[in-house]
């Protein structure tokens, strides 16, 4: 018994060492710089695309009547959906005490934070007069009006801002003890000051831990329902439009699960890359890949149910316009997006039934990539196929995303990657004290 306890102590020291050494002396600077240069290039693309957009107006995009929600809204939903997985992994699994989460939660939360920022930029950028975006906030104003609360735009504003605040808080509260650990190991002055400032004077006293646990769990309890409410809101901004194909009652759960699905896919991709690049194979182990694969498979099958239920709704209603839209999705001008979504989301996914595939990093990465692409196609399909042919034949029209829409999308990936890479470089990517706690718990039960 005594031996077990002492090995745990030794083990916990090495775990903390392994994680905190990354920000203090980065193991793979050359690869990081290469990636970071690429990310900066994308960020430059973003800045140029936004400059062009602001200078010439939204006319540089391809969306117009009838498809007035183009890539901007599809990407908004895609990024926001990806963000939800971080919260689910972190907060939900914290509350149900699934200890294996501790190897994944930190970078999943960072992913959430940066994905939500990307998502939040889109509704602002797609405005005709983006510099008036604050009009969506209810504040005392000289116009003597409230924002239009019936408008999805006002919902987006509240939803994204709330979600951003809570995920930033949750991420920061979670990282404070680890910042203190890095501070205590830092030898350079600037590192001591930087980590010391953000560790907020953490000393690890029993008081600190008690308050920390309280605030962390409380924030988690706020964050989990937000996943459901925020992405239900996103699905309801479709339902607010009287457009065929947007009125299925399955939409809220279908969107929430789809969001979790795409998010788990991106978490799996990041996990595979990070463990390889930073040599964290013993912390993000095969077991974690296995569990991520299972999560991906489970949420994927639930999303597949959404596809089924949506089609069933239409057929059961027998409503002509709804049926036309459904069949048009199968074989119309945008059938590629429908079948692309089906194939990307559900075909490679079936490989995850085998454990051997789940623990194979490269295969898991590729399957997750297919899902991320598939879920993007799904959002594109839902938007465009419904809008380009609505009730009146006279108002039909084809939509093609313009160059500046694509360049903004590429640039937005830079907006995600640049802070994420900085996070990987300068902050503890894994919650070391929680891993240690998990190890201790496991030893005690053993």
């Amino acid at each position, binding site marked *: 018994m005594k031996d077990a306890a002492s090995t745990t102590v030794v083990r916990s020291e090495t775990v903390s060492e392994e994680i905190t050494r990354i920000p203090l002396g980065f193991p793979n600077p050359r690869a990081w710089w290469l990636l970071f240069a690429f990310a900066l290039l994308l960020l430059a693309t973003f800045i140029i695309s936004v400059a062009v957009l602001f200078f010439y107006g939204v006319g540089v995009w391809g969306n117009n009547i009838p498809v007035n929600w183009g890539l901007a809204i599809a990407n908004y939903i895609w990024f926001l959906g990806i963000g939800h997985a971080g919260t689910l992994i972190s907060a939900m699994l914290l509350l149900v005490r699934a200890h294996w989460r501790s190897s994944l939660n930190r970078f999943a939360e960072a992913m959430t934070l940066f994905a939500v920022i990307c998502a939040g930029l889109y509704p602002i950028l797609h405005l005709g007069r983006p510099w008036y975006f604050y009009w969506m906030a209810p504040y005392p104003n*000289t*116009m*003597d*009006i409230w924002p239009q609360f019936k408008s999805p735009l006002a919902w987006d504003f509240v939803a994204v801002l709330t979600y951003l605040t809570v995920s930033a808080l949750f991420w920061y509260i979670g990282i404070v003890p680890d910042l203190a650990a890095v501070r205590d190991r830092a030898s350079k002055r600037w590192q001591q*000051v930087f980590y010391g400032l953000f560790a907020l*004077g953490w000393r690890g006293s029993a008081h600190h831990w008690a308050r920390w646990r309280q605030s962390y769990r409380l924030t988690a309890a706020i964050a989990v329902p937000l996943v459901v409410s925020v992405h239900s809101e996103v699905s309801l901004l479709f339902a607010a439009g009287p457009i065929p194909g947007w009125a299925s009652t399955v939409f809220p759960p279908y969107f929430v699960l789809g969001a979790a699905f795409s998010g788990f896919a991106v978490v799996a991709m990041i996990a595979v890359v990070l463990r390889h690049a930073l040599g964290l194979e013993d912390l993000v182990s095969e077991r974690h890949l296995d569990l991520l694969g299972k999560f991906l498979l489970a949420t994927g099958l639930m999303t597949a149910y959404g596809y089924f239920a949506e089609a069933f709704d239409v057929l059961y209603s027998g409503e002509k316009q709804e049926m036309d839209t459904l069949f048009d999705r199968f074989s119309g001008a945008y059938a590629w997006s429908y079948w692309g979504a089906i194939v990307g989301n559900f075909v490679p996914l079936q490989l995850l039934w085998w454990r051997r595939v789940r623990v194979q990093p490269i295969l898991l990465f590729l399957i997750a990539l297919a899902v991320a692409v598939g879920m993007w196609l799904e959002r594109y399909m839902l938007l465009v196929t419904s809008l380009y042919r609505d009730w009146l034949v006279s108002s039909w029209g084809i939509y093609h995303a313009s160059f500046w829409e694509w360049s903004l999308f590429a640039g937005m990936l830079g907006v995600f990657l640049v802070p994420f890479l900085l996070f990987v470089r300068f902050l503890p990517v894994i919650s070391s004290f929680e891993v240690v706690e998990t190890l201790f718990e496991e030893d005690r039960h053993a």
Partner: protein
Amino acid sequence: MSQIFTASADTRLRTVLLAIFFALIAGGLFAGGYMDSSYATLVGWVQNQPVPFSHEHHVGGLGIDCRYCHTTVETSKHAGLPATHICMTCHSQLWTGAPMLAPVRESLASGKPIAWQRVARLPDYVYFDHAIHIARGVPCVSCHGRVDKMPLMARAVALQMQFCLGCHRNPAAALHPPDQVTRMDWSDWNKHPETHKLYGQLMVKTYGIEPAKLDDCNICHR
């Protein structure tokens, strides 16, 4: 290991955070004050004009009707800034040599209009039509103020949306007899509100104005 921070670091950090907090509040208050300040609304700020035209003299002193110069106010969206010929109906006879009026004579000779600077300007996304307001009896003075007391023209009210909505949400109080629409002094009308209380309500009914629809977005943003 030596201490990273001095003993007062914590206090300083707290002070900075507190300062940021108060700066945000102060920023909000400042923005609110700025929006209503005459610097932002331009109320009372005189525009530089090519000719220092005095409304006080022409309207208050001589009693020239607004429509004598702003000719299209009853028929068009725009009230219209006067053409040089309108000035010259009098000034070809009066003060013909006045140095102050040199730009007017120059304009007539060259055919190049005088570049009057607009004083009451609405944003481009606001659709405003003078004609309907005049036809229904919203007096000039309601928006442009006592121009008969302005030696040099300045904006009289803050042309903010809340100003428009003030009347659009309560149109009855804004309506006056259309045949007196250019009257500047309504103090006798306002002095006995009981006498004229029913006028607005009656006119709202007569004109078929639907107050509930008058603050729809697309009334002004088309």
